[in-house]
């Protein structure tokens, strides 16, 4: 059996973090959680996961800053990152900034079901 794919969840809301953890673990992923960008960046650079789920609005270091720093890293430049947020995509300036950082997807938490999310992750990691 293949080594499970590792996913790091960076999310400050405990309930949302918990739901993602359970869903991903239930689908056979190796999941590590982090509750803000600062800690998340350390964990990500240490663990080199296959994919990152990233919240944007978080204390200490927000998701955008974390992603910027991640993209400066040689390894971090190409790692797939899915942004999961509740910030509306109406802010054009933010959209441009995010596009520059090349996320794999930008999903609204209230609009995506967990199964859908898992499907998208598997698709990206060529597990289907």
């Amino acid at each position, binding site marked *: 059996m293949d080594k499970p794919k590792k996913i790091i969840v960076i999310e400050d*809301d*405990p*309930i*949302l973090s*918990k*739901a*993602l953890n*359970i*869903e991903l673990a*239930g*689908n056979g992923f190796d999941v590590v959680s982090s*509750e803000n960008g600062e800690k998340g960046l350390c964990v990500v650079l240490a663990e080199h996961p296959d994919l990152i789920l990233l919240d944007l*609005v*978080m*204390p*200490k270091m*927000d998701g955008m800053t974390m992603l910027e720093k991640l993209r400066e890293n040689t390894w971090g430049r190409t790692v797939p990152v899915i942004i999961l947020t*509740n*910030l*509306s995509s109406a*802010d054009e300036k933010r959209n441009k900034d995010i596009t520059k950082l090349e996320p794999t997807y930008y999903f*609204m*938490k*209230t609009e995506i*079901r*967990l*199964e859908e999310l898992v499907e998208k992750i598997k698709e990206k990691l060529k597990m289907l």
Partner: protein
Amino acid sequence: MSLSSIEGSKKSELSLLNYELNRAQAIAKIGSWSWDSIKGKITWSKELYHIYGLDHRLPAPDYLNHLKLYSLESRKILDRAVKIAIKDGKPYQVQLQLFNISNGIKWVIGNGEVVRNSKGKVVGQRGTIQDITKQKNLEDKILHSSALIESLLDSTPDIIFFKNLNGVYLGCNTSFAEFIGKTKDKIIGKTDHDLFSMEIADTFRKYDKAVLKLNKPNHNEEWITYPDGRKILIDTLKTPYYGPNKEKIGILGISRDITEHKKLEYEVNNNLKQQKFLAEISVELNQYASFDVVLNDVLKKLAIFTNASRSYIFEDSIDGKSTSNTYEYCAKGVKPQIDNLKNIKYTFIPAFLKGFEEDGIIQSNDVSKMSKDLRAILEPQGIKSILLLPLFIGSRRLGFFGLDITEKNRDWKIDEIHLLKIISNSVSSIYARKEVDSIKSEFISVASHQLKTPLAGIKWMSNLLLDGKIKKTIDQQNEYIKDINYSNERMIKLVSNLLYVSSIESGYKFKIVKKKNNIAKIVDQILLYNKQLSGNKKIKIIESESISKKLILNIDGNKIRQVIDNLITNAIKYSKENGIIEIDCGYKKGEIVFKIKDNGIGIPKEQQNKIFEKFYRADNATKNDPMGTGLGLYITKLMVEAHGGKLWFESKENKGATFYFSLPI
């Protein structure tokens, strides 16, 4: 021819002579008299009788009686003259006034001389009396009317003068004399070159010649200085004037001080211009353009209107300790400074703050005379004159607004300063509007994000429960349901907070429904709900004994629950890891006072007076919890006050905060 006929012809010759003499005297209005002192005989000509108004058939009165025909004054004059003539032997001429009931008043000239015989002895006197009443009346009239003209000329504040063709002053009024600073007699006979400087005199002369050549009146306005230094603007009308035969005699000038008039005219014009300008600016400020476009346009219009070299806005930093040039307009050829003037610390320019605090304005027509700190920053920019006004929203200073003049020194006029005050108020108000707008849009984005987080929690936890592929125990299922419930409660709290605010905005007042409530129960419930949050940060919560005792209070349970909940949630949110929170209460002067103390991040001093404002969040709070709404403390305070209580706090940044609220018992 017989002797008698010769005598007769001689007689008739004499009488003819006498007749002609009488006629001549009557025409000339001259009467004659003689007095033979030897014979004691007085002879009057017929005309003399006529002048005196006496019947010529009567004998002539003697000297003393004849004196009675004169006025008292004239009697003295005549008597004195006669006596002197007798004594010195010289002829006399006097002007006398006659009084006669039938003739009225008459003026005469009396001539008289002493008559001597061949040996030189005085043998009598003779003389003439000439009636000059007509001439005298005419002369009086002329004198009277010229006096009238003179008084008229002197009574006008206008300056009046007349010169001959060669520029020699023939006359002037007292206003002119005052203007020159000399008496009239020192002016008449002089030319402009005697009275004014060469330059001014040349100008006047040139102008005079032009008027004479044109041969018609001409107006001219010019500034002149009085000998005492007073400066006035005069309007001069110069016109050639003519003699009785239409010959050009000279030039007549009338000058009027129009300084006040001009000033008024200028003020009225200026007022109109200012009003028009303000109307334009107000249209500008209210149009639906972006903030930057509006400000840049206002600065440009203002600089052009006031003829300033630069107009600009400085915005203070959040802590108010430094300031940056954020908007600037430069007139053509003036070097922009905006990039050089960023983050200037007020400690380097203390005179700025002092000036704003003391006079509410900084102005100078000569920057080189300002304090050292100001010169150090203004002179390198080439500023000669400056005007600065602070911008305020309420009592909070946003920055300032200013005008520079670089090419020369310039006095700031009161109306300019007034205008700038009006505009600075308008600029402040668009800043205030921008703040409200950004707070509102920020609030909408924060509120929608806040609402979506628990919604996503409900969605995902339900996804897990319903997902058949993921196996879960009954305990796990219960846990997920609790999470759904918690998310739901969070949403309810948030929605009710939002509804509270929106109903308060539309004038709603809290209704307080008081019932007996157990405080310990309320606090325990709150702590239970927040257990997860406080657990994550390993926060220790200490309840005092007075809380855990069964304290029963008559309060609106839901409202006070929300108050305590908000304060405890804040304490947890803003605590660091391993923080300590103490909850206590005690009685004090008819009140019960609750205390919630944490040792967390605290509230920065300069932001402490704002934390109860709606939507306001302190900087460090936003950093720690990016998605608070800024409504919690606002609502909490309203709820405590609705109970007749008070809410307050003590805090030091990075040391923690202690919130107190009191309720009357």
